[in-house]
């Protein structure tokens, strides 16, 4: 092994990789722009739909008793000061309009609704909506909550007329306490959305970030007919391999950092998307609820870095073994699967659901370590075991690729 040769190979591969506009664009700049853009578009769609419902909601009212009275009752007791237009229709016309998305909902008052209401007998309102139209679904939720408020108001009035305290409606009151939050700073709620997204996203990026450069530096080298010339230089195979390995790793780490920055930008630029309802989603608020210790954070990062080293090794192994760029592309595209399977399998798992055996499985252990750290949970046993397992994983992979690179059959095809 010759450090000078390793440096020369590494420098050349990095220069070559960063001159590949396609690869730089898709692996470095695209995640930086694409992820904030995706979240922006999602947020924009949700916000504009809500705005559309708030400003342009249309409903039809159906009543078998008295249409005028029903409209009046709705205006006074449900719509209030909100911008909701009542569209006059027969029931059939209203249904067709609902299916077409011309109106948001249909309110149907059952027979003798108003008479029953006066008598204090339970009366039914049927709320019809179209779940395929988000504006209809949002409108229905809005109406439902308004009707619940009306119900509360009418019941309170009735009870008052009967000289009964309205508290009778709430004889049992529930208060909740999440003990897992007791250790958090100010008892602030965790951001479960971020705990769900960040580990899965990071692991998928770690596993796949080095793929384009891995294909180019080995399968591409062979296809370009430069590999034999390179092997005939004074540099030995181990130096060439390590130089290329380092280039894949550094490129992967840059791509991972850029993707992570892209994700953070997406979060910070679209706080409404990630709000857990009680906290303001800013970087400061996120960090304050995470309650991350320096030790656990470093161990989780070490787990992620060792996983990146291991997967750079797997990528180099597959690219060496492949006979052509196309073959390497096919095999390396499969690398997405273990990350996605394990990522999605653990996506909805809370940090308390993580089992000790997960520390012994690469990918699983990194996801679990990241979830722990983001949740403010410190479990040194799990974190250290995960790092050791990943280091052993790196050693095994490195041993195999060195062996592979020395094999004539694999290198000369």
């Amino acid at each position, binding site marked *: 092994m010759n450090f*000078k040769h390793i440096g020369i190979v590494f420098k*050349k591969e990095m220069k*070559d990789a960063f001159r*590949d506009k396609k690869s730089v664009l898709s692996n470095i700049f695209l995640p930086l722009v694409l992820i904030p853009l995706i979240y922006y578009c999602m947020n924009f769609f949700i916000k504009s739909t809500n705005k559309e419902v708030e400003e342009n909601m249309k409903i039809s009212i159906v009543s078998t008793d008295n249409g005028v009275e029903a409209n009046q009752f709705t205006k006074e007791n449900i719509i209030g000061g909100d911008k909701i237009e009542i569209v006059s229709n027969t029931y059939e016309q209203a249904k067709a309009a609902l299916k077409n998305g011309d109106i948001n909902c249909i309110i149907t008052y059952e027979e003798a609704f108003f008479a029953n209401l006066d008598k204090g007998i339970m009366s039914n309102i049927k709320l019809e909506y179209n779940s395929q139209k988000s504006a209809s679904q949002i409108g229905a939720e809005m109406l439902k909550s308004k009707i619940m408020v009306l119900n509360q108001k009418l019941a309170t009035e009735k009870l008052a007329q009967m000289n009964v305290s309205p508290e009778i409606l709430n004889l049992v009151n529930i208060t909740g306490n999440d003990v897992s939050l007791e250790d958090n700073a100010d008892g602030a709620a965790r951001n479960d959305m971020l705990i769900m997204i960040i580990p899965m996203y990071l692991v998928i990026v770690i596993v796949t970030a080095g793929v384009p450069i891995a294909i180019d530096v080995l399968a591409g080298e062979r296809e370009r*007919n430069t590999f034999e010339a390179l*092997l*005939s230089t*004074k540099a030995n195979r181990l130096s060439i391999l390590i130089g290329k390995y380092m280039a894949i790793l550094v490129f992967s780490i840059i791509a991972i950092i850029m993707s992570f920055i892209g994700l953070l930008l997406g979060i910070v630029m679209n706080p409404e998307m990630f709000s857990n309802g009680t906290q303001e989603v800013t970087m400061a608020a996120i960090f304050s609820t995470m309650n991350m210790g320096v030790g656990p954070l470093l161990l989780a990062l070490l787990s992620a870095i060792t996983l990146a080293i291991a997967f750079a090794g797997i990528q180099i192994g597959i690219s060496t073994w492949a006979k052509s760029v196309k073959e390497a592309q096919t095999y390396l595209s499969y690398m997405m699967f273990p990350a996605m399977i394990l990522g999605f399998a653990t996506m909805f798992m809370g940090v308390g659901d993580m089992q000790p055996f997960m520390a012994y499985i690469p990918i699983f252990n990194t996801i679990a370590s990241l979830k722990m750290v983001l949740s403010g949970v410190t479990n040194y046993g799990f974190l250290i075991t995960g790092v050791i397992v990943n280091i052993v994983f790196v050693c095994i992979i490195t041993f195999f690729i060195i062996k592979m690179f020395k094999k004539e059959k694999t290198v*000369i095809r």
Partner: protein
Amino acid sequence: MIKMENITKKFNDFTAIDNLNLEISEGEIFGLLGENGAGKTTTLRMLATMLKPTSGKATVGGYDTVKEDAKVRENIGILFGGETGLYDRLTARENIEYFGELYDMSKEELNSAIEKVSKALSMQEYIDKRVGTFSKGMKQKVAFARAIIHNPKVLLLDEPTSGLDVTAAVEVHNFIKDCKKAGKTIIFSSHTMSEIEKLCDRVAIIHKGKLIEVSTLKGLKEKYHNENLEEIFTTLVSNGGEE
């Protein structure tokens, strides 16, 4: 300069080279003649230390290709195939520099060697341009420069004209002649008789991994009482080496 003693190379049960013995002197252009799959590339790959012989011993410039492989590689330059393998996103200078650096040349040595070779091959105009935009002829010159940048004593050329047009092939021939003038030992594999006749001092005919003849071109023609090298070759190959 180059010596092969009882070299055999097997890939599983297939014997690619069978007990090959050859000796090539300094400054000689030596032709390896054979059909596709005869074992020419395998022989050159063993001399370039990419493959290890299953048995036997080969030396280049006195260095053992297995035990002193780094020393061997220091003394050889290779050009394998007509398709010149270059890095398209690097300039011609960067392509040559990369290989020069891997031969441990100093910055000064490298600059002076690039200057010299780019002048000799008339590459000054495009030496700092990216290779991806080059014509085949321009790429060919860069590949020559890359192969000789470290001033190797031995050049291993494996069918360097395959797939090239006449002009590009003539460039290769001129390059080989210039290298001979510079005192380099050249092993040149081909299945084109006219090329062999034009360039080589001696020739070895290989068939199915076995050496079936080695001689000067004149000696070959005299031995088989035939002026046509192509006919001598086809007769030898069809007889499997038996006269």
